[in-house]
Structure formats: structure tokens, C-alpha cells
């Protein structure tokens, strides 16, 4: 079995879903002949036809709205938003309808749709192409928000998102799209949408992260290991709903926690995790929870993007700070 990237794993999961479920429809801007600007949908139109893999007009509100309509009719739409920076026109549809259709109709009409978008910075892209605004979606009741950080998880979580009977926003960390390779058996097996994944075992401090930041976080953990500091690294993966149990168990073990995310700090998902740790884990905590995040500034254009995004160094500094305390 060949090793594949996250991007290829996304492609593989989409192909698998198109193959297995006749109700799956894949669409968005440039997803057809072009195979998506990152090639996530490469070859799918050729394989599954222009009726199931479609280029849409350039209109994100419409993309979300039509996905909802399709889902209401029992299709399983998988819509692509080209970059997370262009996802905002979908918000009205997502918060007013996708998340509410089942509730509003007491289960008569459901909305099994997936909205995919590459997200995050670090690829020297133009303005608006480096957004990490997952917290906006994490605040919406009725939604699932899922972020893979490895080829295996990209495959398994995307299949899970497509199989899920409710709406899922699926954010793909584009900086690591091609960064690592793994053997990914194309077995059609979904991964669970309600658990964090433990990436590394350690007893001194818990590092909680997701998306491309798993990369910096694992690097930090490795460097810290060399200094004799053992890190428990958790990839939250499904940031809504949150699997706090796993996080709390880890913190019960380590007594210390650093949360790492790329998004702006204020009202980011890290705040929710930190708040719940303070609520339920106060007795286990030996030190204040640290958040290493993007700043509360506009994501700068690429000359400064590395100054904005959490670095291995910033994570290590935060870990050491929690170790100094108490």
C-alpha cells in the first residue's frame, strides 16, 4: 500500500463515498475539471460524472443553501468552499437552517450535509486565504466541526462526516496537506466523531491542539522530551461537540495544560476548553492553563504570518511556564 498525504486521503475518502453511496454529490467552485484549487477533488468528475461532481457558479451562500436543499431531499451533499476566508456568506444558511432543520421539523426533515474548506495559514497565500475561524462554527448548536490532522484521520473523519446524519463543517489544515504521508487502507471505515486522539503519551503536561498546529505541538513535545519533560499530546479533531472527558482525564494525570491554536485568542475554541478545565478540572490543575494562539489581530499578510502563528518555541515557553508555577 502506498503512502499518501492528507490531501490524497481527502480525495480517497471522497471517491470512496461517491462509490459507496449513490446519494453523495460533490460540488463547489473549480471542483470539476480542475479538481479543486488544491486538487482535493482531482479525477472525481471524470470518474463519477458531471451529475455528481459539479462546478457551481461563484456564490457561497448559494452553495450552502443548495446543499441544505439537497440534504433535505435525502442526498448527501459534500460542498467545498474554496478557502475558509470565503466561508462567511454560508453562515446565515448554516446557523439559520442547516443546524435547525431537524430540530425545527421535529425530525421530519434532516440535513446530512458536509461543508469542506481548507483553512489556516502558513502557505504564503494572499489576503483572506489563511483564516482560522472555526470558533464561529463551534458556537452554533446543532453543528459538528471536524478537523483532521493526519492522512488516516483525514480519511476516516471525512467518511464519518459524510455518513453523519447531521450537518458537519469539515476544515482541512492546508499547510499540512502535503506535509506527511501515511499508509491509509481504503477500507471505508469511518473514525468516531466524538473523541480526541492521543498523539503522544506523557505525564508532565497535556498539550491540546488541532489542525496544522499538531505539527508544531508534536515538535515542541519532542524537544521537551529531550529535556526530560513528558507531554501528553491530544488532537481534539472534533472541536464540536467537544470530548472534554479525554482532555480532563489527561489533565487529571498531568496537572498541567497548554492549549495551542492558530485562531485569534479571544473567544477562540481554546477559551472554551480552558473554561471547562477551570470548571471541572480545577482540583487537578497544578498551574494555570496556558493558551498559545494567534493574536487578536487580523491574520497578517504573509511577511508576518510566522510571527502571528504559534511556533514550537512559543509552545515550549508556555509549557515551561506551567511547570514553573506552583
Amino acid at each position, binding site marked *: 500500500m502506498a503512502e499518501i498525504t492528507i490531501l490524497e486521503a481527502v480525495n480517497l475518502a471522497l471517491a470512496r463515498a461517491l462509490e459507496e453511496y449513490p446519494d453523495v454529490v460533490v460540488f463547489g467552485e473549480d471542483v470539476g475539471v480542475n479538481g479543486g484549487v488544491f486538487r482535493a477533488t482531482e479525477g472525481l468528475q471524470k470518474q463519477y460524472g458531471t451529475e455528481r461532481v459539479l462546478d457551481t457558479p461563484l456564490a457561497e451562500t*448559494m452553495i450552502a443553501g443548495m446543499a441544505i436543499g439537497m440534504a433535505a431531499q435525502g442526498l448527501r451533499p459534500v460542498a467545498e468552499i474554496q478557502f475558509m476566508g470565503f466561508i462567511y456568506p454560508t453562515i446565515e444558511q448554516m446557523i439559520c437552517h442547516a443546524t435547525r432543520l431537524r430540530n425545527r421539523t421535529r425530525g421530519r426533515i*434532516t440535513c446530512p450535509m458536509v461543508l469542506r474548506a481548507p483553512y489556516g495559514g502558513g502557505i504564503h497565500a494572499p489576503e483572506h486565504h489563511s483564516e482560522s475561524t472555526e470558533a464561529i462554527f463551534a458556537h452554533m448548536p446543532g453543528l459538528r466541526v471536524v478537523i483532521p490532522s493526519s492522512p488516516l484521520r483525514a480519511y476516516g473523519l471525512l467518511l464519518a462526516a459524510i455518513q453523519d446524519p447531521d450537518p458537519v463543517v469539515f476544515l482541512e489544515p492546508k499547510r499540512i496537506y502535503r506535509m506527511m504521508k501515511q499508509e491509509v487502507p481504503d477500507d471505508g471505515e469511518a473514525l468516531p466523531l466524538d473523541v480526541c486522539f492521543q498523539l503522544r503519551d506523557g505525564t508532565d503536561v497535556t498539550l491540546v491542539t488541532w489542525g496544522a498546529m499538531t505539527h508544531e505541538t508534536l515538535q515542541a513535545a519532542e524537544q521537551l522530551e529531550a529535556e526530560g519533560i513528558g507531554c501528553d499530546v491530544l488532537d481534539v479533531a472534533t472541536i464540536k*461537540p467537544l470530548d472534554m472527558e479525554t482532555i480532563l482525564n489527561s489533565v487529571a494525570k498531568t496537572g498541567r495544560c497548554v492549549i495551542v491554536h492558530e485562531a485569534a485568542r479571544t473567544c477562540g475554541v481554546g477559551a472554551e476548553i480552558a473554561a471547562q478545565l477551570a470548571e471541572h478540572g480545577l482540583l487537578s490543575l497544578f498551574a494555570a492553563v496556558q493558551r498559545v494562539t494567534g493574536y487578536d489581530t487580523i491574520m497578517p499578510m504573509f511577511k508576518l504570518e510566522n510571527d502571528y502563528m504559534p511556533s514550537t518555541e512559543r509552545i515550549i515557553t508556555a509549557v515551561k511556564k506551567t511547570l514553573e508555577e506552583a
Partner: protein
Amino acid sequence: MTNEEKKCIAKFEIHYTQLLNQAGERVGPLPEFAASYETLLALYRTMVQTRTFDSKAIALQRTGKMGTYSSSLGQEAVATGIGHAMLFEDVLLPTYREYAAQFQRGVAMSEILRYWGGDERGMAYAEQPHDMPITVPIATHVPQCAGIAYAMKLRKEARVAVCVLGDGATSKGDFYEGINLAGAWQLPMVVVVTNNHWAISVPRKVQSHAQTLAQKAIAAGIPGEQVDGNDVIAMRHVMSNALEKARSGGGPTLIEAITYRMHDHTTADDASRYREQAIVDEHKRLDPIDRLRKYLIANHNWDDTKEQALHDACAADVEAAVNSYLDTPPVPPESMFDYLYETLPDALQSQRDEVERRGKQQKGGD
């Protein structure tokens, strides 16, 4: 250089259909269905029933037995024509004034009352599996309609998706994005713009400099036409044609139905702040029910006895619906968690427990 020297590369026309004038007289040949007394009676009955329902609903709101309600007074012909022309397997995406269409499609009057009574169960539509519930965020249902129509097209079903929206709604971008997709993908879809002259306090002319709303279709490259929305025969006719066209693969149509909102925007509104009663009164002369009644009297021996019997029957139906509404068992507070996802995520269990516990305590305490 004047326009004459430029090359004309595209031409468009917008047409208008009226079959009965305001006196209830034929102004053109009537379509086949209008020869059937049963059909005309069905249309008439739906309009009368909807109006009977309407005034009862307003009364419920005024007496504190229901929340805000949006009246369809004066506009009954539009939704009646739509609902009558559609097949059951079609899908309707209504706003909050298409009761007449919803009733014909299996939605119970008691469900509509429950909805305005602040209860999600009013959108469960026991007898209507596919239709979307009332859409409050303006025009958001147009792209959804396109998605539904695409599902039908993909599955090669002979079904049509129909969405209805107001004159004000035509200013919103998703209306345009939706009709543009309908054109681009040649979807089996009919979009009806109910031009009732008002969007709350904002008159139609403030919405757009376009002389008709039907011409918005030209931007999407689809046919657009205007119809007298107070002439139920014309409405039913134009709607049928559009549905047939869509059903047989002919693509989408935009229909602008001209009518008038006779009541306040909703029971929370006070239209006297922004429009003259005299203008409203003038529009009374165009009333759709009066118009069909005149036609029935002149052509089908309709009389006061029949009229009274019909009103009594409608009143009885409405009465039954109101009783059903008022007898609705209370909704358990914890149900707010039960239709959020197919399966309640663990993360929400403790919140649900809290609400359930409190609900039981309060019940216990009463």
C-alpha cells in the same frame, strides 16, 4: 454616439396575464380547468377557508392565546393558485403567508397555529413529508429550492420545487443567487414573487428601480412573467404552465404575482403609521374572493345559501383546528435537546439532565 449606432445583441419582453377582471368578467379565453365547477369551487373554498382561518388567528393573537401572526388577507388567490396547481410529490418552500397552499398540501390549520403559538411541533407537518417549513429569514429558501430541484433532476423524478417569496425578498442576494443557479442548471423549479406592494413599511418602489419584479428573471437568463395575483384563475393557470414546463425538463420560471397586503405586516405591526387607509380601501375593490364569487354567481348559479353553507363549513373546520391547538399538550422543556442531532452528544447530556430535572421540579411545585 447614440444607441441607434450600437448593435442590439439581446431583446427581452415581460408579459402580464389577467383572465378575470375585477368585476369577475372574462377578459380572455379561460383555460380548460376553469370549465369545471368542482375545480372553481375547490379554489373558492380554499380562499374562503384561508380567510376564515386568518381572522380567527388574528383574534387568537389579540386575546393573548397565540404569538405574533402574519396575515394573508387579500392575498389568498396567490397561494391558492400555487397549491392547487402543484402535485403532492412536488415540494413547496413557503414564507409566512402561503397558508392557502400549505392547507391544500396537507398542513393542518392547527399546526400553523401551533407554530405561531411558539411551538416547533407546528412545523412537524404530520401529513406533509417533504415541504419545507415556513422560512423566516428572507429569501434564504431560494438556494435551498435550487438544491431540492437538483435532487429531483439528478434522480430523474418528474417533480418540481416551488418557492414563494415577497417583493421585499427580491432585493436579497440569495434570491438572485438561487434563480441564477436555476437558470445555469436548468432546474425544475418555479419561483413565485408575491408582490403585495409592501415589505413591512417599505413600499415596493423603494426596493428596486426595476419597473417589474418579473424582469429580475432576465438577470438569470430564465423566463419571467407577471400575473394578476388576485385573479385565482390566472394564477392557477400561469402556475400550471410553469410547473408543466419545469416538470417536462423545460427549466425554471419566475412569476410575479401582483396582489395587495390588506392587513398589517403582522399582528406586531401598525400599518396606519406608514400607509393611508384610503389606498388600502381602494385595493379592496380588487379582492380575489369577491372576484371569483362574482364569476360563480354569473356562471354557476352560486347564491347566498351556498355562500352561507360554505362559510359555516369553513368556520367549523377552523373551530376544530383552534380547539386542537388550544388542547395541545405542553411541550417538555428537555425536548429542546431531542431533535438537535440524531443522537444527543455526550457533551450535552448534563445540560439536558439539568433542564429535565428543573422541569420536573417546577411541575412538582405547581
